[in-house]
């Protein structure tokens, strides 16, 4: 079993872990002091050299993103993505509720690095405790001089405010979040321009996931070389894996990237419930393609999961045992995406609805064999043809489910067919 002492989840089990005093006792805000002694470019270089890639799903190199912000822009923003909604994912909620200062310290360092004097926390409207914890953490950080004017005597100023979303999965997509922060419908913008060039109110904006930001203080404190020594060739550092579904011990497990799915499921999450076998795994949240039991030895890393035909996504591992009805699983995931489609792009809005109607008929035993080609055709008419990645994300579970569990789909045809 991989030996790993948690870094990101070191605090969350401590009593009063959310309080600033607890965070300071554990060495909190030392990384901020160190970062403020460095130049912004040195901070960006450190993050670049660490190899950190975004933990919100896309896996874009964080330091590289920061370097895209135009140096001469007078106004720049940082947006903190606490809109965790990808089915199977529950890591950011844990950190926000139990260790908000770990993220906030990362926010301040990131803002210093890119030269943003204003940061916006965007949090799911459903996360009521999280909202309270964010507000309290920010208020305390002001009191201790970690926010506001001339932070720790560095001359750097930063203000942070909290904004509640109101129930829309799509607002986790960075440009939809920006629209929502502006008080509008959360409909994604066409990219490019990317937010780093033109984001909130068309000013350069860095949008960063909570788990990503929680890594920053550790990188600054222990150095890029330490961080780059963890993980695989293209996937550095520790990752919080959210394990749910048919396992004995569902929960958040922090492990180095590159750990195998088998180890996560069998050794950390206690194996499949009732001693059953694995049938299918969704490795990175509902929008990532499914894997099967013969792929359990794939390392959980960006490059290895891509080679296996899936993606690391948010690191949300959903385990399904041999009794699972894969037609129903596919239908439920589709229903989620159809409900959450913002409706802006026709392929996603109309195509998704057509796919769901077909899956409903199939599940009810009312579909003819030609439905398989029809589902393929509809998916091909959506994937890659929408403003945001949700259109493709909607189709991944369908196309992978139909490919991997074809027999279960065809078994639903009426006997006459």
């Amino acid at each position, binding site marked *: 079993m991989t030996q790993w002492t948690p870094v990101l989840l070191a605090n969350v089990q401590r009593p009063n872990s959310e309080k600033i005093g607890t965070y300071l006792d554990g060495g909190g805000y030392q990384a901020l002091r160190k970062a403020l002694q460095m130049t912004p470019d040195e901070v960006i270089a450190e993050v670049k050299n660490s190899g950190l890639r975004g933990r919100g799903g896309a896996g874009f190199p964080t330091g590289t993103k920061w370097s895209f912000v135009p140096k001469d822009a007078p106004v720049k923003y940082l947006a903190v993505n606490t809109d*965790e*909604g*990808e*089915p*199977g*994912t*529950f890591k*950011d*909620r844990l950190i926000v509720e139990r260790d908000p200062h770990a993220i906030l310290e990362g926010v301040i360092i990131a803002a210093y690095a890119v030269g943003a004097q204003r940061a916006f926390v965007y949090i*799911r*409207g*459903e*996360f*009521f*405790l999280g909202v309270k914890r964010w507000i309290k953490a920010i208020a305390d950080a002001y009191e201790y001089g970690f926010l506001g004017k001339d932070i720790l005597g560095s001359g750097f100023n930063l203000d942070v405010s909290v*904004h*509640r*979303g*109101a*129930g*829309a*999965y799509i607002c986790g997509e960075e440009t939809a979040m920006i629209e*929502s*922060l*502006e*008080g*509008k*419908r*959360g*409909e994604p*913008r*066409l990219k490019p*321009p990317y937010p780093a060039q*033109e984001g909130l*109110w*068309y000013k350069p904006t860095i949008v960063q996931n909570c788990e990503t930001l929680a890594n920053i203080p550790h990188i600054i404190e222990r150095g890029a070389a330490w961080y780059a020594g963890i993980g695989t060739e293209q996937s550095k550092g520790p990752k919080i894996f*959210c*394990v*749910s*579904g*048919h396992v004995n011990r*569902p*929960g*958040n497990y922090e492990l180095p990237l590159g750990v195998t799915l088998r180890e996560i499921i069998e050794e950390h999450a206690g194996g499949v419930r009732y001693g059953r076998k694995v049938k299918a795994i*969704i490795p990175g949240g*509902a929008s990532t393609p499914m894997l099967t039991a013969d792929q359990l030895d794939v390392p959980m890393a960006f490059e290895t999961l891509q080679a296996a035909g899936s993606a690391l996504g948010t690191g*949300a591992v*959903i385990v*399904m045992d041999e009794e*699972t009805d894969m037609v129903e*699983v596919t239908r*439920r*995931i589709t229903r*989620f995406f159809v*409900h*959450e489609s*913002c409706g802006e792009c026709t392929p996603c809005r109309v195509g998704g609805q057509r796919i769901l109607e077909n899956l409903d008929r199939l599940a009810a035993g009312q579909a003819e064999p030609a439905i398989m080609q029809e589902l393929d055709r509809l998916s091909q008419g959506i994937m890659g043809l929408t403003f945001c990645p949700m259109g493709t994300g909607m189709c991944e579970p369908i196309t992978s489910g139909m490919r991997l569990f074809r027999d279960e789909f065809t078994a639903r045809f009426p006997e006459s067919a």
Partner: protein
Amino acid sequence: MSRNDSTDPPVGSALIEPAKQAMLLSALYIAQEQNGYLTPEAVERTAQRLGLSERDVYSTASFYTLFRMQPVGRYVIQVCDGLSCYLADGADTVADYIGAKLGIAPGETTPDNAFSLEKVQCLASCGTAPAMRVNDQLYEHLTAAAIDAILERLMGEV
């Protein structure tokens, strides 16, 4: 350039103050507090306060599921319909159980306006499934006994 340039007023426009418009979601939460949903009067007042048209306010409000245009019960029970809750024998099971106890289906409100039942998308409680929210309170690891206790307590408060 962004596609938004053609339809949205530029930053600093006299038509809409960006900073005021950015407060719209927060304002809608406040506007919704009093009646549990957004009354036409609340929308009108919100629009006036923020210098927006009622159309703009409706446009934004109708996009988000937590803003309601219809009255709801005093307690809104939101059962997670996510995949992990389904795999944990929750989702349909929990919604059906509560629906049978209250005599309503998802999307309905009890005749005394005490409870509304909804199925909602993933609540990020997959590791502690099945889960539901009642107003702003999250409940996890749901069992029949736990649900009974929650409903009994809420009924006592109605």
